[in-house]
């Protein structure tokens, strides 16, 4: 019954998003939607750790960048096919998440923020230093992903758009599966009451590590897709603007909800594009908006959508499952 509802929701999203290329002729719009989808995927996977797992960390940008740089370096220096590179990006992010997660998840709260923050800076220093491998400040110029004879790049916006859309759907299913699995249930019970969860035999460290690692995979895949789509990789992948975009997507959309970060990424990306006329005042408006949303709409805009339409009631949905278990 519930999975049927999810299926309907997915179908609705796919339907809406897949007719867009037929309606708009401007590559600009397709590009912005693609960015929204990519950012949405990274944000919603991060949300798995932040919102569901209660682990506030800053490693999502390093995961994203690790994905981008691993495929870039391997394809430039060893001729790896970018199509495989996408997967390699995901694997690289997973490896990094293990390196960070195994020691780091033993510490909690603000310490986890600091730890992941330090990793971010060390990785950036390495990228900037080893110019021969990473291209340093100049970055690397890449080949596009090829499927058969078709290039997935700027020149084929529609094909690229559908590739991003498939990733988007994949991510949705991936996250939904995790949330509904034993891991997801354990996470929610850990978040709500750790003492109770531990008494029921849940190992918090193990569950958190698994979630942390799972949430890194698609961030790495997206990083790899992103750099091959734009055909360049630069240290800008470590920019704070990415961290702020991902984080803001989660906050604007709704922490700990399935659709929140995706909605947030779409709203944020389109809002920032349509506010371009503000020129230098754009970031100030953005900052104010973030603060206002945090204060007046702490559960994010998804709550408005929830109220308006019960179709998007994913939060109640997952909560409902927990109740049944109990």
């Amino acid at each position, binding site marked *: 019954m519930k999975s049927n509802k999810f299926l309907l929701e997915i179908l609705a999203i796919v339907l809406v998003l897949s007719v867009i290329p037929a309606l708009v002729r*401007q*590559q*600009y719009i397709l*590009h*912005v939607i693609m*960015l929204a989808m990519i950012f949405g995927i990274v944000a919603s996977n991060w949300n798995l750790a932040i919102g569901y797992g209660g682990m506030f960390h800053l490693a999502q940008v390093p995961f994203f960048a690790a994905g981008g740089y691993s495929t870039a370096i391997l394809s430039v220096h060893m001729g790896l096919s970018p199509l495989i590179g996408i997967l390699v990006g995901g694997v690289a992010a997973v490896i990094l998440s293990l390196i960070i997660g195994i020691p780091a998840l033993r510490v909690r709260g603000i310490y986890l923020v600091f730890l992941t923050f330090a990793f971010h800076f060390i990785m950036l*220093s390495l990228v*900037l*230093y080893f*110019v021969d491998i990473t*291209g*340093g*400040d*100049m*970055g*690397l*110029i890449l080949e596009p992903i090829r499927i058969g004879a078709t290039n997935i*790049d*700027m*020149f084929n916006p529609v094909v690229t758009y559908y590739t991003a859309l498939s990733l988007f759907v994949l991510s949705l299913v991936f996250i939904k599966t995790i949330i509904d699995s034993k891991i997801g249930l354990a996470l929610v019970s850990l978040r709500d009451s750790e003492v109770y969860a531990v008494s029921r035999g849940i190992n918090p460290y193990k569950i958190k590590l698994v979630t942390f690692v799972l949430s890194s995979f698609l961030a790495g895949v997206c990083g790899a897709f*992103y*750099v091959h789509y*734009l*055909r*360049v*990789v*630069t240290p*800008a992948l470590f*920019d704070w*603007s990415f961290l702020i975009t991902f984080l803001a997507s989660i906050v604007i959309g709704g922490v700990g909800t399935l659709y929140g970060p995706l909605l947030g990424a779409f709203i944020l990306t389109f809002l920032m*594009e349509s506010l*371009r*006329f503000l*020129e*230098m005042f*754009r*970031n100030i408006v953005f900052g104010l908006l973030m603060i206002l949303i945090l204060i007046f709409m702490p559960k994010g805009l998804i709550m408005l959508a929830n109220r308006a339409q019960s179709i998007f009631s994913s939060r109640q949905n997952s909560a409902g499952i927990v109740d049944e278990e109990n």
Partner: protein
Amino acid sequence: MSEKKISRRKYLAIAGGAVAVAAVGGAAYYLGMGGPGAGKRPVKIGIAAGLTGRRSGVGVDSRDAVLLAIKEINEAGGILGHPVEPVVEDTVDQEAGMITSVFLKLIEREGVDGIIAHWGNNSCAEFDIVQEKKIPYISAGAANQVEAVITPNPDAYSYIYMAVPSYKLYGTIFPEYISILEKEGKYKPINHKIAMISRAFEYSIFITEGLTKTFTDMGWEISIKEHLPSAKVEDWSSVLSKIRSDPPALIISTMTDPASDHLLLKQFLEDPTPSLLYEQASPNDPEFREMAGNDADGIVHVYGIQKIPTDHPYRVKYQENFGRDPSPYGIISYDQMMMMKIAMENAGDPFNREAVAKALLNIDYKGVMGRFVIDPKTHLPKGGGEFMPFPVYQMWNQENMMLYPFEVAEQEFKYPHWYQKALTK
């Protein structure tokens, strides 16, 4: 004070005007009307500048320079009678996705007829878009990367041109000059050692590589090498202690940052060594001149721009309009816009993009910076000789004096003010 106010008002008027034009243009676009004004169809010029990112100083100076050029062009009757309409977009930090958004928006939504950027993405992420959409584009930075991308197949980038020459000459001009001086006995270096200071920035890395290669080929030795992660340096003592314990004849900094280069100079002068100090690009920044004052007397550098003294008419004009002295990008971008105008006029039709691109390739324009003649192999302006000059400058009394090439030299090489004192110590 009152002058400042007026210029601020003017600046606000220009900025306000630009916003108003953009707003009206945007509204007109959404309402499906024609462009503003019932006269001739305007030529729309996209200005992609990092107004709010890390390099907002560069971005704003560049934007203002283009707006100044456009104002002048419109006052003189536009391009072939068509008024010019600027469309400004913020590229923040030139991140590839952001650059792509901006260029696609400028081209598809704003329908610009040409784009000017102080520089685009360091890895040229925007090139494929402008080429695919056939929009004449003039950029001005990341020249070595641009050169590397364009050289293998210049025809594939027929819409893309640069306003700054190749960095290659930076690697050879100064060593060449030093060896002439040494041969003629006008400069007697204490040894053949160099302290090389660079940072993780493409301009700095490339120039450092070039200088290192030429100097080591000449038999010099890089005795101290310091590479920095960024331009933020609160203290140079560690590098200076190495320099003081084994003084090199040359200290070369390619930091290209007026703040850290000035601090280096200041801390160096606390206990100077008999070394020449070469600081790339920074001596062209008004802030550097102001802060360093006569401390900077004797600093040498090479810059691929002809001498633009403080009382140069362009500088005066820029100051009158914006209440501040332009940094290099406040000059370069003016020439970029003028290049675009001349190419559009030479093409005979500003909207015939293919012809405009061709006219850019064949341009011969004497601008503020120097003479622009495009090298068809790289799409960069030719440097050296009769083209974009690459003089060796030495700063005296807050002015960069030309030393080399000798035909244009304003004065002879003199030892910097700290040199004798340091030598006798």
